[in-house]
């Protein structure tokens, strides 16, 4: 994706100068998802009056850092995409893994926008770091039940908030095989 890597390079230049996302900037055609999610601006999301989730606040750090002069905040994470490609990224403490993925052009969908109402941001966490994550709230477990190819180390990306302890964490996007059910399961009519 030439245009995408060009934009990454361009922003690398901007990183040295002050840059920030203007709220309400809206989206432009072809703009990457991460940028859209960073400034929800004109997006209308109806509220239901109930608490949608009781896990970590996914909006506590929607804004992944634009410039981090202070390296003590940096958390290195590696995403492994669906074709097995390893993509190391630099996040910072408090970053949400889903938005970090978007920020770095990784194909992790977030259909319900981190409100624990879907399982499109399903990832596998490497063993070493899986146990360092706080336990999933009941609502996350319920949504994980819907995720295809669920494993013991499955989590929803939108519920992973970076801490220094998660330095070196690897998040793998599940391979959705061509016939969808990897174990050969075929739903049986009755």
């Amino acid at each position, binding site marked *: *994706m*030439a*245009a995408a*890597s*060009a934009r*990454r*390079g*361009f922003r*690398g230049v901007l990183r040295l100068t002050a840059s920030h996302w203007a709220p309400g900037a809206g*989206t*432009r*055609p*072809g*703009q990457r*998802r991460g940028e*859209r999610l960073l400034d929800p601006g004109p*997006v*209308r*999301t*109806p*509220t*239901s*009056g109930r608490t*949608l989730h009781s896990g970590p606040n996914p909006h506590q750090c929607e804004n992944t850092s634009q410039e981090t002069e202070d390296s003590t905040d940096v958390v290195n994470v590696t995403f492994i995409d669906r*074709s*097995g*490609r*390893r*993509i*190391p990224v630099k996040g910072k403490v408090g970053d949400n893994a889903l938005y970090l993925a978007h920020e*770095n*052009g990784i194909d992790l*969908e977030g*259909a*319900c*926008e981190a*409100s*624990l*109402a*879907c*399982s*499109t941001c*399903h990832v596998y966490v490497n063993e070493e770091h899986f146990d360092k994550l706080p336990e999933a709230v*009941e*609502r996350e*477990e*319920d*949504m994980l*039940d*819907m*995720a*295809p190819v*669920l494993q013991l180390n499955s989590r929803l990306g939108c519920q992973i908030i970076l801490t220094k302890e998660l330095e070196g964490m690897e998040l793998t996007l599940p391979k*959705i095989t*061509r*016939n*969808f059910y990897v174990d050969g399961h075929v*739903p*049986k009519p*009755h």
Partner: protein
Amino acid sequence: MWRLFTRVCPRARGSEAFAGLRELSLKTSPELKVCIIGSGPAGFYTAQHLLKYHKSAVVDIYEKLPVPFGLVRFGVAPDHPEVKNVINAFTQTAHHDRCSFYGNVTIGKDISIEELKQAYHALILTYGAEANRTLGIPGENLLGVYSAKMFVGWYNGLPENRNLNPELSSETAIILGHGNVALDIARILLSPIDSLRKTDIAAHALETIAASKVKRVLLVGRRGPLQVAFTIKELREMINLPDTCPLLNPSDFEGLKQIVKDLPRPRKRLTELMLKAALEKPSGEEAERRATASKEWGLQFLRSPLEVIPSNDGKRVAGIRLSVNKLEGLGESAKFVQTEDVEDVECGLMLSSIGYKSHPIDPSVPFDQQQGIIPNNLGRVLHAPGLYCSGWVKRGPTGVIVTTMHDGFETAESVLEDARLRVLDVSASKGGYQIMEALLKQRGVHPVSFSGWERIDNVEVANGEKAGKPREKLLDVQEMIEVANQ
């Protein structure tokens, strides 16, 4: 200018050589004109993937209604607004400069499949399942008997169901089916009216439900607790619904405690929740809540509908005759077998929530009547080069957003592969929408553009604000078109 940056800025470390080659070959390939028929999640996810990975694909999405988004708008329950957040992703796709939306155009009526084939390199059928499976029992068409599809369409503002006018004047409603749609309907029927007031439920439905006398909703399924099709989030919501008490018969769950631990995780957690609700005696706050509840809902197992019992005047439903079943086999594929025994249950409202069904769109498009899908392999329609499908019309009418998402990507991959391997002949350029535009004009059809939808959207949100709702949906197609073309 951008190419200079590409040379100067290195690609992400560890990039796949194959992916690089693929992108290169698609970048220099000629324009690929694709039309997508149906603007629900299947259509939009397929479009998203195509636009991302083919640098010169032009994607036109056709929709028979003036408004997009299919079941996200008309199927997802009004009290599940977070699920509808996906509309933001679809909106971004629609705003892509190589994507266009044409609403108020019915393929098969305003334009034929054959005409689309002349104008586009590839056609992707994503029109879902607009019909419902029928019970096939006497009395199915009496007053007070509705398909879940019609009822959901009614409370979600689907134009064709706005005049359903269901009567909610009896205390007991029976829903046939043990899926999420059945639970959605039960929840909407029994929710405290004040929580429904703040949702985007259609105004006429809110009014009717506010005056509803329904106090008891029974969900009747032909198999057992281990075969329920609903999922844990929806069941939990129902169990926790304010001012309601669950009616679960402990004898339905005999022997299940021992089996549960060996079940796969999703089925295990779901069954454990049902067992807890059925067998555990609540204490404290929960006991208090159930004791003072004014409404109740229950699950009945191993019952199949035999006939609708009519009222004395023969016009409406007064009850249902059910066969008592037993199960043969275990797990997902257990089969129900009717016994001699029957049971009559009184009710004044009956909803059949036994599944959706697709229709064939055109004789030239292969259709498997038995399975109710377009026969395909990975989204490539069999024996029909240039035709693809994704979503419910490809796989059958089950699954949630994540299933349709992956499915849409799979079909898009098939299209991309065919373009790459020249199975799709893109050497001959195609006219695309230019050709359709002329035809539609001739035929007096006025498509609604995406900005036309956005005008409708603004009016709905503004009207909703006055009522303290996220939106007040327009219910009339003509009105939608007028607003869109202002």
